[in-house]
């Protein structure tokens, strides 16, 4: 009997969480009312979760660009195609690595911070106090963080890609000795605005929605204890990573199909 119950729980719990997340997403959208208070709160959050992620994004971007260039160079040199290093680097970054790695870094740096902050507000009854003061916590706490995440991630993704291109170019031109004209020329001729640049943008926008939502959801519905907050932060990173990679595949299929 208990085994049956446990099997039922294994089915019903994820379904209940999924249902709750859909309702919560609707609640967030319904709570978005553009006004000066929301603008101020959102800008403050863009600074907290966006601007403070700049250093980690820039450092990681630069090194990812260099290592990608090195790996491509090693393989392409076997076929005498080292002139294509710039092309491989740019296409990998725009189409996949830029948005995906930025989303993973974002959920680790900013997502965990959002989940922990909201979880702690719940544990210390700050959210409850808001409700009792007739202030909607979803409107005042969740919405600004969600919107700030959605705005920040595409911007951070562009910066990541830019720094990765800079890192790759530095390595290819200055260390590998590839001609800078060939490197940049091949890159520019192979990257297309619609299929590459816009794919990067749409993916990072989708990942911004996903990573920000998972962070606010995990924090808002956490068990209000130290252990619960710990689990919420871990869940933010793990679930974001899995969902981002699945959605990445789906968007790629969709955009290459049409």
């Amino acid at each position: 009997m208990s085994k049956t119950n446990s099997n039922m729980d294994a089915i019903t719990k994820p379904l209940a969480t999924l249902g709750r997340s859909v309702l919560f997403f609707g609640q967030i959208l319904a709570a978005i009312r553009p006004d000066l208070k929301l603008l101020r709160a959102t800008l403050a959050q863009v600074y907290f979760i966006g601007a403070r992620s700049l250093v980690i994004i820039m450092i990681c971007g630069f090194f990812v660009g260099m290592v990608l260039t090195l790996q491509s160079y090693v393989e392409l040199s076997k076929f005498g195609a080292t002139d294509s290093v710039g092309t491989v680097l740019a296409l990998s970054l725009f189409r996949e690595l830029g948005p995906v790695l930025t989303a993973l870094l974002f959920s680790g740096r900013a997502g965990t911070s959002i989940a922990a902050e909201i979880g702690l507000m719940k544990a210390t009854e700050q959210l409850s106090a808001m409700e009792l003061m007739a202030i909607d916590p979803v409107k005042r706490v969740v919405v600004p963080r969600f919107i700030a995440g959605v705005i920040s991630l595409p911007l951070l993704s562009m910066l990541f890609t830019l720094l990765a291109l800079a890192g790759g170019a530095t390595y290819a031109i200055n260390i590998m000795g590839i001609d800078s004209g060939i490197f940049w020329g091949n890159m520019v001729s192979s990257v297309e605005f619609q299929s590459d640049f816009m794919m990067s943008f749409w993916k990072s926008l989708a990942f911004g929605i996903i990573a920000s939502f998972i962070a606010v959801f995990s924090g808002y519905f956490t068990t209000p204890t130290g252990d619960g907050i710990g689990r919420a932060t871990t869940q933010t990173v793990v679930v974001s990573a899995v969902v981002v990679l699945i959605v990445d595949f789906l968007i790629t299929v969709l955009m290459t199909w049409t």
Partner: protein
Amino acid sequence: MPDDLIKLTNLSFAWGEKVILKDINLNIPRGSVVAIMGPSGVGKTTVLRLITGQLLPTKGTVEVDGMCVSSMNHKNLYKMRRNIGVLLQNGALFTDLDVFENVAVPVREHTNLPEALIRRLVLIKLQAVGLRGAVDLMPSELSGGMARRVALARASVLDPSLMLYDEPLAGLDPIGASTILRLIRDTNDAMGMTSVVITHSVEDMMELADYAYIIASQSIVGQGTPEQLRENTDPRVVQFLNGEIDGPVPFHYPASDIHQDLLG
């Protein structure tokens, strides 16, 4: 017939299978300070959450100012709460805002007053709780008693007609406790409020309250003025008021026979 601001009628509440409150009838007259007392875990805070509409009764009704809380929609519930001040157990100050901004939150949210007037209003409220000098401090720089006083200033900043206090004296030293007690009485009388104090601090409440209810075993086991309660002979009331370790509320949590547990 007294004019009651709050009326709980045949009210029951359960968490799943576990019954917390059963057929409670409780009236809070306007302008009074009423204490709701009882042992820990008996459901006192649940009563507060039922009054504010954070929880819904499984049976019975909760009326605040003649309106049924359990049948209110979200909009009306928030409208009602604007007229209620709640002091939560730990103060629940917003940790990212300083004292001034904490007190100003309800004013900024619910009014369009100019900044100069907001400043004056907040300073008046902080002066009333003796913390005008702490206006620039962050919550992390306040003692427990100071945080409770700032929370009291915040809860009363819009001059609500009803104040609810959840364990306002818990964890406070004697000076902090008597300060909060005096503020509850003064705020209530000066502003013509009604106050409900959830607590288990017997002596303090017998001094402060005009009327008190004692909750135990899911129901109200005693009620009356402090004098009437002292004369009550119900063993559950006597045990609670005298702080007796064992009695109708047992010392031991229900368990199997000790010999069986220890000797196998």
